[in-house]
């Protein structure tokens, strides 16, 4: 089971808190657990989580840890970060790490986000229908390639994303057509320091 806070590290703690009389239960990794505990005034738990973590780390019996162990030796040629190092600190060393750790990262991103395909804006696109249209075009090309390579699972995912983006684009365009005066009003009001 993954941590419900960061979604990156395996959960090793079960935290039960009472928030204004309601019981809230969460499964957390040692890092996020330490964050939560730090916020309980008067008690310093930060070390406790560390100690427990080192004990649990030695057991190394969790499934996801075993999976990750296969990749621990991977190294990013650009910044020198190893997958083991990333596993420990939860942060990547440079843009190239994403390529260097592609396989385990893809699995991790799927776990964290439930998805591995970006559906938002792309650089160079304007924050409007343009970026969505550019995305759709790009995804359509990827879809053709996936079909050609007989990667049908990937193709199905791409098709769903294209469909979702098309709906969004339609909504956006009808929005602009239907409410031009509202948009003008909104843009004009207030003295925000828009840049």
């Amino acid at each position, binding site marked *: 089971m993954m941590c419900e806070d*960061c979604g990156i590290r395996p959960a090793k703690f079960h935290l039960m808190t009472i*928030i204004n*009389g309601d019981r809230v239960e969460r499964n957390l990794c040692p890092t996020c657990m330490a964050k939560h505990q730090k916020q*309980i005034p008067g008690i310093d738990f930060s070390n406790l989580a560390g100690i427990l973590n080192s004990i649990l780390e030695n057991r190394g019996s969790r499934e996801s840890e075993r999976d990750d162990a296969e990749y621990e030796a991977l190294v990013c040629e650009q910044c020198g970060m190893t997958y083991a190092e990333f596993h420990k600190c939860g942060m990547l060393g440079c843009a190239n790490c994403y390529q260097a750790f592609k396989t385990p990262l893809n699995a991790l991103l799927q776990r*964290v*986000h439930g998805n591995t395909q*970006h559906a*938002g*804006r792309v650089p160079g696109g304007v924050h409007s229908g343009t970026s969505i249209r550019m995305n759709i075009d790009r995804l359509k090309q990827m879809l053709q390639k996936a079909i050609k390579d007989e990667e049908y699972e990937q193709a199905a995912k791409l098709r769903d994303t294209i469909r979702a983006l098309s709906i*969004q684009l339609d909504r956006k365009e009808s929005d602009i057509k239907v409410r031009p005066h509202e948009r003008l009003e909104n843009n004009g009001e207030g003295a925000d320091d828009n840049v």
Partner: protein
Amino acid sequence: MYEYVLAPEQDVVISSRVRLSRNYEDLPFSPKLTPEYSEEVIERTVDAVFKTENGSAFTLLRMSELEEDARSRLVEHHLISYDLLKFVNRSAAMVSSAGTVTVMLNEEDHVRFQGLLPGLQLERSAEMALKLDEALETRYPFAFDHQWGFLTACPANTGTGMRASVILHLPAMSANGQMGAVMQTIAKLGLTIRGLYGEGSEAQGHLYQLSNQATLGRSEEDVIHALTGATNQIVEHERSMRESVEKKDMLQLQDRLMRSWGELMYARLMTAKEFMTRYSDIRYAASMGYLHAPLPGLDTLMMDVQPGSLGVRAGKLISPRESEILRAKILREELQALVAE
């Protein structure tokens, strides 16, 4: 008769914030960031931001050059994240004069753009952050991958790199023991809700933060849309709860809430924790029309009497007792002025 302008849904939604995480594609990320590279991040960003249309409205604040109270004050006013202070030696922030746009530098990612507005205004907050993002990317490209989107130091932000959130004041729902159920429902929508202050044991001041969880696989518009929808539902629920409590016994509700006003008007020592309870009560009272105080003023005052902000105001290091005295004094004076407006 007095009047003041309320932001959308401000009776329940205190503020809306959108943060975008970006990294320069040719520089190492946080764990491998040397002092030279972090300086390069600051130089590039400052240069690019100052060259934007309203660039002159920004002030650069290097965290290493600020006193501890001044840093805390920025966190308390939501201008920077608490995490920015983890990297005090290298981190900086560019803050716009109106305080609605901030650029954080050398936090977990090279650059984090933030748009912050009162009430429920997620779309406009996002537009503010995205506008800066677009202006900067033309000068120095950000790390981007066609499959994974914007590449961030922590994979939890990969994709849009966008965290959108609202701060909610939910006294009636909290009192009715409904927050547990709300938290369970919210999780199913890919959103997360937590206490804003005093996390771990209780949500002080009945303040909660609702934000998106995933950043990969959903567009910016989609996330903003979902979060706004969920917020609107919570707002409706909180309002109907407040109304039903009023309907049940208005006098008792007024009595309970207005006693907090009395405490604030006459107390000589006020702890931060007690203040949050009283603030929640008078904000609730003001939203119901029992107390004629402007909500935006109450919210600003709430941030102004947090520990760091008090220290900045005192202009020196103060003891816990001194800060309790100062907090009580500021509250007496400024609340009086707020109702007199």
